[in-house]
């Protein structure tokens, strides 16, 4: 996934900066726009592989930008990031042609994983295979191979591996992992027991394939998969 072009439309300058900084580590060109007008200009200038779109903009609604985009017959991928989390908002966003919907506050690693998934779907229409170094992961068939050898993973371990590969060479916080795996149904703080045990199992299974220390724990804050 080289030479991908991203546009982040977000009126909150510091959040915009965080997102751009996070994506700067990927091989992406990442543009930013803080207003509706600036976003329209950028969209007219370039085709984007993915647009990360905030709904509340000072001079217009993000959904209108989405309508504008689709009227121009542009098929740029769109991920909506919104402070509003209602089924209605989600449905109207997806109805207008958004590819994904993420509610604030989100984890950047989650946004990254969603962007990667979207870009993959757009570039490989026939199959959905994630290739990274020694890993080849067929996301449709849910089969992971390492150096051509199949890894016997549980559902949780598989999801965790995909998440770590999507965020490779970064520290992914255990909270982000927990939310990615559990969802956000409970008012109780998540238990990290499951994250710890899944990481342990995954490390053991990778070690069996001769890849020890591929996943490192970072001071109990999170984990990093180095490729």
């Amino acid at each position, binding site marked *: 996934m080289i030479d991908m072009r991203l546009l982040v439309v977000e009126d909150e300058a510091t*959040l915009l900066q965080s997102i751009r900084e996070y994506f700067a580590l990927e091989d992406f060109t990442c543009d930013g726009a803080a207003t509706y007008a600036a976003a329209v200009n950028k969209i007219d200038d370039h085709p984007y592989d993915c647009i990360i779109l905030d709904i509340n903009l000072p001079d217009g609604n993000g959904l209108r930008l989405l309508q504008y985009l689709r009227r121009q017959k542009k098929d740029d991928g769109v991920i909506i990031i919104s402070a509003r989390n209602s089924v209605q908002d989600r449905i109207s966003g997806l109805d207008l042609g958004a590819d994904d919907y993420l509610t604030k*506050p989100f984890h950047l690693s989650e946004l990254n994983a969603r962007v990667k998934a979207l870009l993959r779907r757009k570039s490989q229409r026939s199959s959905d295979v994630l290739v990274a170094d020694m890993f080849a992961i067929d996301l449709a068939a849910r089969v992971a191979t390492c150096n051509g050898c199949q890894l016997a993973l549980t559902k949780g371990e598989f999801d965790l591996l995909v998440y770590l590969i999507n965020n490779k060479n970064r520290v992914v*916080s255990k909270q*982000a992992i927990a939310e990615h795996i559990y969802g956000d149904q409970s*008012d109780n703080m998540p238990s990290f027991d499951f994250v710890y045990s899944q990481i342990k199992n995954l490390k053991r299974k990778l070690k069996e394939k001769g890849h020890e220390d591929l996943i490192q724990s970072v*001071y109990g*804050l999170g984990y990093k998969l180095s490729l």
Partner: protein
Amino acid sequence: MSKPLLQKNTKYLLTWLPMVLLGCSVLFFLLLRMQAHHMQDKQLQLKQRNVWSSFTGTGGAVAPHVRGEYDIVKRSDTLSVGQGALRDTSLYYPDRAKLLPFETLTSRYTWNGDGYEVTVYVSSTEISHLIVKVFIAEAVILLLLLVAIVVLNRNSAKRLWQPFSASLQKMENYDITRNQPLDLTAETGITEFNALHKVIGQLVDRSNSAYNNQKQFVENASHEMQTPLAIIRSKLELLINEPGLTEKNAAILQHITEANDRLSLMNRTLLLLARIENNQFPETETVNISNLLPRLLADLQQYYDSFPSLESNIAANLTVVANRSLIEILLYNLLTNAVVHNTENGRIRMTLEPSRLSISNTGKVLQYDPETLFERFRKDSYSTKTTGLGLALVKEICILYGYTISYEHSNGWHTVSILFA
């Protein structure tokens, strides 16, 4: 002491009205007697004139004594009694062998140079009988009047207060959280009630608007907080990716992350509560709780290493028509509560009967009034794993769908039950 208005009014009437009527009766009796006396006086005067003119007209040939009618006595001395004054007397009637009461009037006349004393009699028996009969009739009428007044008063009060009772019923059923208007009849036909309804209507409108503003405020405030929370979270993610992170800094970051996550969680739950209150979950479907529950349980058993030992008894095919995510949130919160607030090596007992779910867990005794268990931010001080909003959320969902939720504690078991009906 509070009593119904009707009863109070009746009691008041029954206390005072007989007294008034009794007073009136006494007055009536006195007036009646006075009038009777006056009438006898006139009768006697007339009789006296008639007797005297008959006596002088016949040249004294009339019988001077007729018992019970008159006496004419020739007297030269002064009058033996006061002239023209009525006197009570009684005459003996041998045929009836008793004394009968009479009223007499004595006057002095002069005829042919002689002085005469004329005394006329009128029987008191008939008049006193009449007085008694009239008085009894009057008493009966007053008694009937008393009953009629009380009955009429009760009935008319019932009719008059009917709009009030109807409005009271409506106000009792009024629930501000349901966001419904209070429909009081504008025209009751009674000015005071119309005014009351108008004032209550305005009061309810003001309360509704204040309540809605408050709900809207919570929702807006929560929305506004999402972006700063997103900024903090994103900066923390960038920070943990900084090279040269020391263990000490990592520990600080850990604490900031935890606090921020708690804040995010609290904010998300407050937002959810506000949205449930604002009826923003109109989509419903048939949700099979019998299928959903084991799935959530299996997830949770995976997520917690120290999941308490579980006894469950789940009846098949319990379905409800509701919003699926809300039902999932409801069950998930109840289940995680039973896990989080459990003791070491604790237990969970779960029973799903048709239309009733009970989840019991072992746990410490509550440090607060169980009545307030479902209130917001109600939690034990030692608990940092929760926001104290979970059960408030559960309760709010139950209110939305009309489920009955209850809590009880016995023998070290905390039980929360939900009646889906």
